């Protein structure tokens, strides 16, 4: 009796060890494949860094020398002062002119993006009191137009405040000053807002590219049939595919985070352990998505397209990285709740700039865990280790 049960236990033990060996062997094979085709290593280490620099340098909403025109029809001391503050602000590169017509036409085609007009009448009124200054912007780039309007207003506001201080309270017709304080990012540097979030886009890309082809490849090359003949189970098969890319992805993630702190001087105020945890969960989601695409399509062409379509643009446009989710129409806002990058962007931003705000980070991590669970259930279901 005793010997039988101990025998069974030994057999089971043996089997378990075999299983682990199976997974490890597959993982090792996958690892070899990674090192043999250098493009995997490029994807894991070079691409993320290149992307990070592209995001850091290429995407910025802090206007810097945007060409605008300024037309002063009849200059006076007041207009000169205004012009000086426009010129002095580093937001704009100012083209000056006397006549509206000559400069207006530059708006077509974006040779200037906006135009500030101080008419003769305005100059006269300015001497007496307040006067409207016309701001003309090209709406064909609505976002830039919005930014320019905001910045011109900021310049004028500063000018007003300055003026009020100069002349003392008797002339203060705008006695309410607005003092803006920006938390977490005191200089309102858009790069500090964008870079941490862009890590989410980068990891989505890396994760989906790395895994979207791994199963489809086996089917297409016919090596899947060899695997089918082995005693491997579905979960073991997937685990073997997952592990090497997970390790690769996590190292890439830490590398990118470190570069943003060291090279781009983005503050990191949260805990690195928490970052590691959230990244691990997110990577499970991203790799899971890739594997799901790969298993479901079995065809590298379709898998590639699906990865490109599901990976890059949604994580860039719908994650709240550049475009505010709250501002989107309701159906799209609802849609974003089903896209994992949104939660990773939010967690990354908070961890980098605000610190360990548990309400946000834990909530995001929990939701991502649910995503991971769903994706993996689907992937395991879709994986068929039989020929049809």
């Amino acid at each position: 009796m005793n010997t039988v049960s101990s025998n069974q236990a030994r057999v089971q033990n043996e089997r378990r060890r075999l299983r682990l060996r199976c997974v490890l062997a597959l993982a090792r094979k996958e690892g070899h494949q990674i090192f043999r085709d250098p493009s995997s290593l490029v994807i894991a280490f070079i691409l993320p860094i290149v992307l990070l620099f592209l995001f850091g340098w290429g995407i910025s909403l802090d206007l810097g020398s945007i060409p605008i025109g300024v037309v002063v029809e009849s200059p006076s001391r007041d207009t000169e002062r205004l012009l000086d503050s426009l010129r002095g602000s580093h937001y704009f590169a100012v083209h000056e002119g006397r006549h509206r017509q000559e400069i207006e036409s530059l708006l077509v085609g974006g040779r200037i993006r906006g135009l500030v007009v101080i008419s003769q009448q305005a100059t006269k009124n300015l001497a007496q009191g307040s006067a409207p200054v016309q701001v003309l912007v090209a709406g064909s780039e609505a976002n830039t137009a919005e930014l320019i309007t905001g910045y011109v207003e900021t310049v004028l506001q500063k000018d007003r405040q300055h003026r009020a201080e100069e002349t003392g309270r008797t002339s203060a017709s705008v006695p309410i000053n607005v003092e803006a304080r920006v938390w977490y990012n005191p200089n309102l540097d858009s790069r500090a807002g964008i870079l941490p979030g862009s890590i989410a886009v980068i990891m989505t890309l890396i994760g989906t590219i790395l895994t979207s082809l791994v199963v489809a490849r086996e089917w297409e090359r016919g090596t899947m049939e060899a695997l089918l003949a082995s005693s491997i189970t579905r979960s073991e098969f997937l685990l073997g595919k997952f592990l090497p890319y997970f390790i690769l992805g996590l190292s890439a993630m830490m590398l990118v985070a470190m570069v943003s702190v060291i090279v781009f001087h983005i503050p990191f105020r949260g805990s690195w352990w928490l970052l590691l945890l959230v990244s691990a969960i997110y990577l499970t989601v991203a790799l899971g998505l890739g594997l799901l695409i790969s298993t479901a399509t079995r065809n590298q062409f379709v898998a590639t397209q699906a990865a490109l379509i599901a990976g890059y643009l949604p994580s860039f446009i719908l994650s709240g990285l550049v475009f505010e989710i709250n501002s989107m129409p309701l159906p799209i806002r609802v849609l974003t709740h089903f896209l994992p990058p949104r939660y990773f962007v939010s967690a990354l931003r908070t961890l980098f700039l605000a610190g360990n705000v548990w309400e946000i980070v834990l909530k995001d991590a929990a939701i991502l865990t649910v995503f991971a669970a769903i994706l993996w259930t689907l992937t395991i279901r879709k994986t068929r280790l039989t020929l049809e």
Partner: protein
Amino acid sequence: MLDRIRRLVIKEFLAIFRDPASRVVVVVPPLVQLLVFSFAATLEVRNAGLGIYNEDGGLLGRELTARFEAVPMTFSRVVLCTTYADVKEALDTQQVLAVVHIPQDFTRSLHAGFPTTVQVLLDGRQSNAAMVAQGYIARIIRDFSTLATTDRRTALRPGSQAVSVTRVWFNENLYPLWSSVPALLGILTNLVALLVTSLSVARERELGTFDQLLVSPLRPGEILIGKAIPAFVVAYLEGGLMVFAVVVLFGIPFRGSLALLAVAMFIFLLAIVGIGLWISSLAATQQQALLGSFTYMVPAVLLSGFATPVENIHPAIRWLSDIDPLRYMVAITRMVFLENPTPDVVAPYVWPLFPIAAFTLVSAAWLFRHRVE
């Protein structure tokens, strides 16, 4: 030779459209993305949360609060904070984008004619939204303050003040949709053309059928042309379909010349097909081809001026934007749709596409022949 190319083209079309899954991924997603992304790509601030920390017990403090509550489009949730801890909590957990702090002596100072300061606390994590919200808030406070002072009818002599009045050209109501849709048109046609070309050779290489093509009477140049034509046709037709959809579905005005757009799109797609073939001839596996597509696509979109103005790009990589065909296409579509530009205005955006297209196509052909032999 023409006949041989024709046959290859037919075969390529079959390869794309025979498989139902690949048929779907080529046609449907671009249209869906056009629909979804164009609504999403906005820097406006809407439906944001706003905190108000009103330490002033007076009338004016309440009135200013009411002002903020009266713009539900922008600030759909107004959270009243009573302590500083509330403020911190609301900002930390991102319930609100900004908090307006009205000081204790707000009403008193204003009644006495003293200037006072309202503090605005912003969440710098969402730096763009914070920036835009700051503008809105400043405008609301400014309007309020002019009203508050004229109400008192005090004989203050105002100093010289300049107040801005904004007018918008081309997109009079500043609908973000109007500028995002034409830009997406460029991005999505690019995606289609690139997808179809970049994998076509790598797939044949991996399946081993490429060698069969090589031993066929087709010459390398003919193979290249045969690979280029289907991708070009698919992307061009899809582009046309999207232009049509944009005008009909979104009601976006088409003010420029359709012929101009057609010509620009033609050259643009030639350039993209060239890039696709480039990737295709370099890549030995489909994974490498996919990597190549991303390597082009990501910077092309980031530096195209789609999300942020081209002028903001760091000087170190500005030149990359200058050789980005997508950047020119995005500018052209926006112009043609909204501005009705004269030819001399569009020319600086159209002509760079010629050398780019010529370079990508010629070098792809060279590379292809080189890698084949």
